[in-house]
């Protein structure tokens, strides 16, 4: 049966980027549908009635929601190429732990860096840098979080690279100065076609955030 794969997405979404990368890693042909989040499509509301959020992966008409669940699903269904999760249960637990850390800590702190100002931003910035240093320590001297090959944590985290310029400009700091190994890792990932074609340009993301800030009255 011909596989039909659709991805409902929004170009600057960190979460959408994960699924784009996973699909590209596996060489899966799919239809990319850009959503206007101020005017959500009937399809999106039907496919994700609980959260009404992107990304939504639709495989042969059936929706899979939540980016990390999508990545694991893609990895299981198209298991013959470019494995993303390790096969060992303990290693799997480790990568799931770090993906959870990225979502719970790094994402929230990063959001606060660009959304807030003054004291609140200063605290967020400090904690954000600490969280980046922690994950940089986890990377260590490995080429990828997955070791010799690009894996689940790499997929989960590399989208943030497209937002680094935004965090840096809003927070007035340099991620490379704080975490040089992370930047080296990010540039290595960007050499991969699956990543390069899935991430938007950093300046474009920053311009978009500036518009968002104006819209929400955050100076």
């Amino acid at each position, binding site marked *: 049966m011909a596989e039909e794969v659709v991805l409902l997405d929004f170009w600057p979404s960190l979460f959408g980027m994960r699924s784009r990368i996973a699909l590209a890693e596996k060489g899966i042909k799919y239809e990319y549908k850009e959503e206007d989040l101020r005017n959500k499509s009937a399809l999106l509301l039907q496919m994700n009635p609980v959260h009404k959020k992107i990304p939504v992966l639709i495989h042969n008409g059936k929706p899979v929601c939540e980016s990390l669940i999508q990545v*694991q*699903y893609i990895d299981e269904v198209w298991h013959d190429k470019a494995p993303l999760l390790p096969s060992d*249960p*303990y290693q*799997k*637990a480790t990568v799931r*732990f770090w993906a*959870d850390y990225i979502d719970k800590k790094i994402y929230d702190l990063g959001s606060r860096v660009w959304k807030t100002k003054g004291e609140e931003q200063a605290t967020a910035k400090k904690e954000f840098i600490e969280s980046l240093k*922690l994950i940089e320590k986890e990377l260590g001297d490995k080429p990828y979080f997955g070791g010799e090959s690009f894996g689940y944590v790499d997929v989960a985290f590399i989208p943030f690279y497209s937002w680094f310029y935004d965090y840096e400009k809003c927070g007035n700091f340099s991620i490379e100065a704080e975490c040089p190994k992370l930047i080296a890792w990010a540039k290595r990932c960007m050499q991969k076609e699956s990543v390069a074609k899935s991430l938007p340009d950093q300046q474009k993301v920053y311009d978009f955030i500036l518009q968002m800030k104006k819209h929400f009255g955050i100076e």
Partner: protein
Amino acid sequence: MAVVKLLGTWFSPYGHRVIWALKLKGILYEYIEEDVRNKSPSLLQYNPIHKQVPVLVHGGKPICESTVILQYIDEIWPQNPLLPADPYDRAVALFWIKFADDKGLLMSKLYRGNGEEQQAAVKEWLEMLEVMEEHALIGVKKFFGGDEINMVDIAFSFVAHWLGILEDVLGLEIFKPHKFPRVSSWIQNFKSSPIIKDNLPDADKMSTFLKRGREMMLTSKSN
């Protein structure tokens, strides 16, 4: 077989998730009660990043975060599977587990809230219960896992037991069975299941403990 240890607290729903999973699979383990106000060197060593329970230690190697632990247990000990075998069904189950995990934070919001904050928390609880009623439980007869409990049932356990305790502690009535018949039916099935029934923290003990904690919290807030 490598030794299995579980670091937890008697009142936490997250630690209980792991207890139920281990018992459902017939795995023997050593339970270590942690005092979260006085964390043991072991806990700090096993979970240096979050410094939280539960932590499962298997053959000396720690696994943290209850949902990560549950998936690990399910993969190491495949008997009585806690997730569907089919990748799509598993993705749906994981969606609901994540939903339950995210909404678990509502326990704390409700417990710590006062006045407006508490009202906002109650509203969020009702919205969550509606989603369970109108979406999650559609097509579910006895358990999310079919005839047997699975990881989704375990993830929603805070609704089955901890919500009632919080209502008692705070003097609120949030869950009205007639408004949420499917949730109500699921709660009854879940709580009568042998492994669950025999492994729940005592409601009265929890109530007393939480009432005292809340008093202390509110006093220190106003000081």
